[in-house]
């Protein structure tokens, strides 16, 4: 596949990129209260899209709408469309389990399965749907841990309990676990907010490599992080998408005064 580079800071070149996902007028309500309202946003294939904005502005809410995680919250209700490869994932008859298989998730706090070893954590998404072939599983473990930049650190203790890893290693283990089922999209909700600077660095470093295999949407409240790792950035404020564009443009030449205020640290 041809993957055009996005180097421009102006113009509409990014609109030529293939879409992996897209939302159209997507809203999420908790009871009567809207968590996000009428968000339309493109998610380009093999690119990193960052969602920034002050705490409580709906970043997590939006992210969880992209793989139907809100199905698990009884009071949450989603309206509008979220397209994955052109298909609305909220359409009748779409299996949410299938969607979550294609759109993986990494959570804010590392959450490896405490009863499983490092190895079994990585292959849990495969083993628990009945894949038992040892060669296949071994290969998935090495591939996923390598992609998550964890292989060298744990290759000699794959049978160790997952909880024996450090916090940063646990988070990379969770990334590897999500990658093992080979999702098309990886949603990351502030994946480094619970980590020390060195672990944060290692996760930021692996993202540029990772996006060759998977489309990434990352929520962060750290603007420097968004600037460092992402190709596109969306700025959220009180449940609405204020501005979306190439990261360079958002950070150097924001069109909306509210984005500019946030970027330059005048609030938030």
């Amino acid at each position, binding site marked *: 596949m041809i993957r055009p580079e996005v180097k421009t800071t102006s113009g509409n070149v990014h609109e030529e990129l293939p879409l992996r996902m897209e939302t159209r007028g997507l809203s999420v309500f908790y009871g009567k209260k809207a968590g996000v309202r009428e968000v339309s946003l493109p998610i380009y294939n093999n690119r990193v899209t960052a969602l920034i904005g002050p705490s409580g502005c709906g970043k997590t809410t939006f992210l969880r709408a992209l793989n139907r995680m809100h199905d*698990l919250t009884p009071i949450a209700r989603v309206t509008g469309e979220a397209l994955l490869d052109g298909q609305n994932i909220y359409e009748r008859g779409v299996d949410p*389990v*299938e969607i*979550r*298989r294609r759109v993986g998730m990494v959570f804010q*706090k590392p959450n490896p*399965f*405490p009863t499983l070893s490092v190895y079994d954590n990585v292959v849990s998404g495969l083993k628990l749907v009945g894949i038992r072939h040892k060669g296949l599983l071994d290969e998935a473990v090495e591939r996923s841990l390598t992609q998550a930049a964890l292989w060298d650190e744990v290759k000699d203790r794959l049978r160790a309990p997952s909880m024996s890893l450090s916090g940063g290693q646990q988070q990379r283990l969770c990334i590897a676990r999500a990658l093992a089922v080979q999702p098309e999209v990886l949603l990351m909700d502030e994946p480094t907010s619970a980590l020390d600077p060195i672990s944060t660095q290692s996760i930021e470093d692996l993202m540029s490599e990772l996006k060759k295999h998977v489309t990434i949407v990352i929520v962060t409240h750290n603007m420097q992080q968004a600037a460092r790792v992402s190709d596109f950035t969306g700025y959220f404020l009180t449940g609405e998408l204020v501005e979306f564009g190439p990261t360079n443009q958002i950070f150097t030449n924001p069109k909306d005064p509210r984005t500019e205020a946030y970027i330059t640290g005048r609030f938030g």
Partner: protein
Amino acid sequence: MRSLQARYNRDRVMVALLLLGTALAALPLLLLLGYALIEGFTSLNWDFFTKTQKPPGELGGGMAQAIVGTIILNGVGLLLAIPFGLAAGILLSEYPEHPLNPPLRVLSDTLNGMPAILKGLLAYVLIVKPMGGFSGLSGAVALAFIMLPILAKSTESVLRLVPWTIREAGLGLGLPRWRVILSLVFPAARAGVVTGMLLALSRAAGEAAPLLFTAFGNVYMQLNLLQPMDSLPVRLYTYAVSPYDDWHRQAWAAGLVLLALIVLTSLLARWATRGRQ
């Protein structure tokens, strides 16, 4: 300073009262244990474990049939109760939106509050009547009715303690909900589930009333579940109301053995789930 000293004094008095209260509450228990030990130990010998009852009035003999019967009745009862109890616990904890959830909760609470003797009656109506006679099986069913709500309640509460993040992680991987519950949530609660089984077992093991008209009792060794079967509580009761001193001592011994069996089971289970959680 005077008031500080006064507070210290008051504190001492309160602690002393508390200790006194605890001691008073523990006293009957200690007396019972001590008495059972003294009375029971004189009858605890090899014969007690290997022989069955001697004709009334004759010294000696044992309770082998009651020990074996208690183990069988409770073992079978637990096996019968486990699938239903765990399934109910899972449904109560993991499927709050399921239409069967509220009625199941009412059923479980009702069963929990129902006197044990009524559960015996239930087993009598369900098994003894249709089969036309007393049997170990009906006793096991009666005990299962006692264990069921305890299992359901304890399973529900330990599943609730499993962090929500584990479920989210599993579902986020694209695993079906039942798979997440069975393979990820349940194992994380394993030790607690086993503790619940012990709780159910120790509650049921001491019951005589529901067995009186189900398993009935037997002075001979009986391994066939379709025949009347003996148990320690029933034997204890029978011996305790008998006019013979030797049987009274054996009744105490039966109590001791029952207690020892329960302690032993819980040690075994602890050992089996060691290193988890």
